[in-house]
């Protein structure tokens, strides 16, 4: 195994090995030195980014690197264009987040934070690079542990601890189901390497479908889709902004959708009915999450719900199974990562400067924090799919993909989703940056440079990917689709003045009207969505949602509680049967025996005489 030398396989190892070593080194740096840890992790992430970019230059599809693990088992790391694209994006985000979280206050003990950040970088690049499913699973599972510790150290309040537990449980169980799914794959194909399986894709028969759905649960949880998303909003409340910007916003989405792409396109040959199920899940995620986002008053919680809804678009894109849709899904994945983490960074900087998260208390910060405000505006426009920015282009591809499949209902769902997204961002922007500046925020200054720099970088990427959409599409997305095995016929990128553009304009107008009507009724910017919130039917759906009826975690908790006390009753019953009844019987029996012996000689003699006579009669009755 040759390490760092100019051959591509060597470079491929850099994002894996170097951050791991540095992570361990960071642990030994003493507490007192300031900024050494931050500086160290920034350098390391920069190096891994450089390695990812260099791999791009060298190109060279499916480079193979074999590890011998306990001699018998071969560990394959394989690099095709899709994983190269993912590796680049993962390293980019780790680099930006490590810069960003230098001056974020409540990220917990910095030593552990950076240790975890680098380990997450290692794990995610491991997931992306590994060709062997088992190896991928190993890195995938380690992510859960880092997730748990990240949330746990962010503050020592009770809610944080219960959120950490909730996250760990949901992700843990999902990973177990994925593990079983992978075991089934091994059972079907008796090989674990993705490249071999992809040669003869697994068809959807008995074990195949079951393993697909089990792995699907794992990927959807990682990506944060509808039924398994409930930990993200809670994490948003109780953990720090840099964590939210890093994992739920970027890394999780990237890895989740990457693996979804792998299994639905590369490993399995999914048939029509499975495809429809996927599209239904996608559309539910879009609508439900954005409906919830609309009514939120907490800055980060609102953003987290949007993160969940945007995942819906990506899943929709992938599940269209035609090249345009898939390209749209993948492109939306990278776009979403950029503007979502940028939005979370703005949330972090606002929180750092004003120590307030509740948008009803914020207002008029535009002139106080101009840079953050501008970045917010750009990324908000990108997420709602306004024309020249990257969001629009990826959504446009996704819409084309869904229209090609012929099921227009999913198209309408996606459209409604983007309307509500824009409405909620209008509400957010208006209540935080515009409107009246209330008195106690007078002294707020602009956030320090280390926070602004990554934000500005990300918003520039949004703009670049927007206007120069053909750059990422041709360089990153197209080769990775080809490597999966779907050749796009039409030209992917480019600005086409067709009716999709017109629809996006109508969406903008429609959400503007919603916002203005809400503002005029209630007067307060943060109340603009209340007329939807308290509408007749929707009101009690919202109440149910608040109480957590839709939350899988709560449902299971109730089930297990009732199960526990049923078992307790059964145990009490057995305890009586085994312990009490025999001892009582024997005591009654023995007291009866001692009662018989009343001590009077005559009764004894009578008993003996009777028994003797009986025995003799029995004896006498011998027939010979």
């Amino acid at each position: 195994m040759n390490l760092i030398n100019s051959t591509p396989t060597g470079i491929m190892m850099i994002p894996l090995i170097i951050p791991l070593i540095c992570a361990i080194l960071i642990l030994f740096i003493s507490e007192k030195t300031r900024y050494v840890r931050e500086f160290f992790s920034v350098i390391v992430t920069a190096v891994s980014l450089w390695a990812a970019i260099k791999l791009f230059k060298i190109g060279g599809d499916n480079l193979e690197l074999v590890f011998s693990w306990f001699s018998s088992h071969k560990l394959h790391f394989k690099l095709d264009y899709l994983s190269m694209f993912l590796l680049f994006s993962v390293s980019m985000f780790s680099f930006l987040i490590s810069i960003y979280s230098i001056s974020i206050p409540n990220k917990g003990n910095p030593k552990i934070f950076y240790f975890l950040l680098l380990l997450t970088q290692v794990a995610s690049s491991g997931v992306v690079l590994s060709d062997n499913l088992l190896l991928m699973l190993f890195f995938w599972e380690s992510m859960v542990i880092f997730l748990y510790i990240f949330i746990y150290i962010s503050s020592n309040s009770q809610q944080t601890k219960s959120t950490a537990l909730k996250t760990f449980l949901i992700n843990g169980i999902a990973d177990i189901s994925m593990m079983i799914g992978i075991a089934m794959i091994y059972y079907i194909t008796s090989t674990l390497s993705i490249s071999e399986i992809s040669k003869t894709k697994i068809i959807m028969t008995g074990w195949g479908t079951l393993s697909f759905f089990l792995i699907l649960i794992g990927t959807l949880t990682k990506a944060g889709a509808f039924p398994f998303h409930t930990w993200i909003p809670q994490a948003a409340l109780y953990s720090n902004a840099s964590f939210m910007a890093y994992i739920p916003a970027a890394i999780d989405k990237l890895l989740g959708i990457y693996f979804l792409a792998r299994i639905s396109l590369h490993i399995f040959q999914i048939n029509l009915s499975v495809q429809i199920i996927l599209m239904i899940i996608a559309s539910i995620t879009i609508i439900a999450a954005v409906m919830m986002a609309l009514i939120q008053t907490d800055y980060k919680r609102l953003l987290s719900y949007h993160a969940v809804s945007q995942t819906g678009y990506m899943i929709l894109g992938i599940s269209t199974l035609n090249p345009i849709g898939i390209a749209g899904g993948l492109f939306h994945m990278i776009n979403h990562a950029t503007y979502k983490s940028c939005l979370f960074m703005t949330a972090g900087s606002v929180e750092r400067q004003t120590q307030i998260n509740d948008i009803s208390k914020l207002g008029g910060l535009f002139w106080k924090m101009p840079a953050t405000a501008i970045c917010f505006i750009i990324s908000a426009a990108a997420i709602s799919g306004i024309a020249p920015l990257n969001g629009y282009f990826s959504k446009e591809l996704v819409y084309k993909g869904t229209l090609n499949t012929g099921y227009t209902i999913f198209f309408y769902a996606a459209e409604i989703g983007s309307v509500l997204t824009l409405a909620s961002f209008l509400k957010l922007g208006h209540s935080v940056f515009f409107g009246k500046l209330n008195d106690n925020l007078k002294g707020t200054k602009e956030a320090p440079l280390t926070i602004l720099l990554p934000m500005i970088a990300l918003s520039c990427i949004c703009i670049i990917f927007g206007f120069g959409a053909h750059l990422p599409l041709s360089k990153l997305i197209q080769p990775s689709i080809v490597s999966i095995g779907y050749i796009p016929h039409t030209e992917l990128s480019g600005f086409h003045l067709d009716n999709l553009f017109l629809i996006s304009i109508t969406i903008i107008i429609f959400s503007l009207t919603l916002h203005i009507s809400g503002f005029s009724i209630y007067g307060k910017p943060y109340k603009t969505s209340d007329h939807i919130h308290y509408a007749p039917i929707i009101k009690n759906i919202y109440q149910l949602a608040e109480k957590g009826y839709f939350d899988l975690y709560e449902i299971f908790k109730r089930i297990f509680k009732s199960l526990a006390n049923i078992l307790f009753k059964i145990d009490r019953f057995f305890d009586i049967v085994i312990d009490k009844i025999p001892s009582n019987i024997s005591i009654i029996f023995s007291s009866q025996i001692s009662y018989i012996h009343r001590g009077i000689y005559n009764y004894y003699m009578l008993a003996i005489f009777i028994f003797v006579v009986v025995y003799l009669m029995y004896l006498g009755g011998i027939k010979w």
Partner: protein
Amino acid sequence: MVIDLLSYSLIPMFSSLALPFFAKKNIRIAIILANVALLSGFINISYLIINSITKPDIIPIIDPLTVFLIFTIYTVALAISFFSTYYGIEKEANPISYYSLILLSVSAMTSLVMVRDLFSLYLFVEILAVCSFALITSDIKSNSIEAAIKYFFLTFPASILIILGISLVLASQKALDFEIISVSTNIMTMIGLSFVIIGFLIKSGVVPFHFWTLDVYQGASSPISAYLAGIITKIGGIYAIIKISIIMKYYPVETISSILLFTSILTILIGAFGAIAQKDMKRMLAYSSISQMGYILAGVSTFSSTGIIAAVFHLFNHATFKTVLFLNSACIEKQTGTTNMTELKGLEKKMPITSWTSIIASMSTAGIPPLSGFWSKILVIIALWQVGYIKSAIIAIIASIITLGYFVLMQRKVFFGKLAEKLTEIKEVESPLLLPVIIMSLMIILAGIYVTYIYSYLEKIM
């Protein structure tokens, strides 16, 4: 009669006759003479038996069963007489007659074991009965008189039944010798012998006829109840049944064996269950000894060679650990004045040796593996299994679990836990009183460990 073993029965008899004359000058000398007579007999027989166990082929044993039982008789008798010298028998009864009666009962038992004639067997059983019921009265409490009367009126009618049996055997055989009887099988003899067995069932205190055992073991003075439970009821009752079952090897034994099996299972169960709710320690030990008698009888009821070996082995084991238990209850009674278990608590702190020996003995009764009780019970159960009485084997196992139950209950109540306030000032009994108990427990442990030697020795019986 086995001539060369005759000395074991004659020496105690002559010494018991000589005892009153020695006692004229000084009672101490008489007591010492009695103990020395028994000690010499014990050393002699133990030398004989150890040689025959360790070097089985060199010394040809005339009759292994007789030697084995004489060994048991002498161990228990020596333990009792040694114990009662320091127990203060003088306060309660005339020591001269007490020791001569013990010596006479020893000679009666040894000759009973050696005898080869049915009528002489009956005679020696009568002598033993007379001596033992006189010994029962050697306690000042009124209970002992009541116990003696009950013993007299409940067991002596049984000898009449035995005579009826003997008359039937006499009518159908040339003579009453065991060899002659065992050779010529005959229905009338079979019925006669069954009459005799039922007579001896009454004498050995198995369940339908166990009423006298409870009152006698509780009422008699403690060393005597140990002597009774230890060896007299066994040799005077169960030994005769074993001897007859050996004779009836070639007889059609279905009916009598089903009677014996029914009685033994009844005994085991009622003995075990009865002991659970007992308040008085000696009465509980009486119930447990009835239950153990049931095991011996179960062994005999199979009429198979393993059954009889198991019965003899369990007889020996039961003799040792029952004597230990009763002697311990005697020590407790001597120190605390009562054997009522509700008043005794946490004796282990004050009387450690008594407690620990009685724990070993009760564990052996319950049949805990390393100890000897376990092996004999297992043999009995195997014998039952082999002959096909599987249900009764299972009942025997369950009953031994219940035995373990009530013994642990008794120990927890009497020996462990917080020391009862009244008992704070009591001390351990004098060391000579503990000597027999310690030797007996050692024998239990050794018998448990060297069980293979004993089994190979016992196999020569059949």
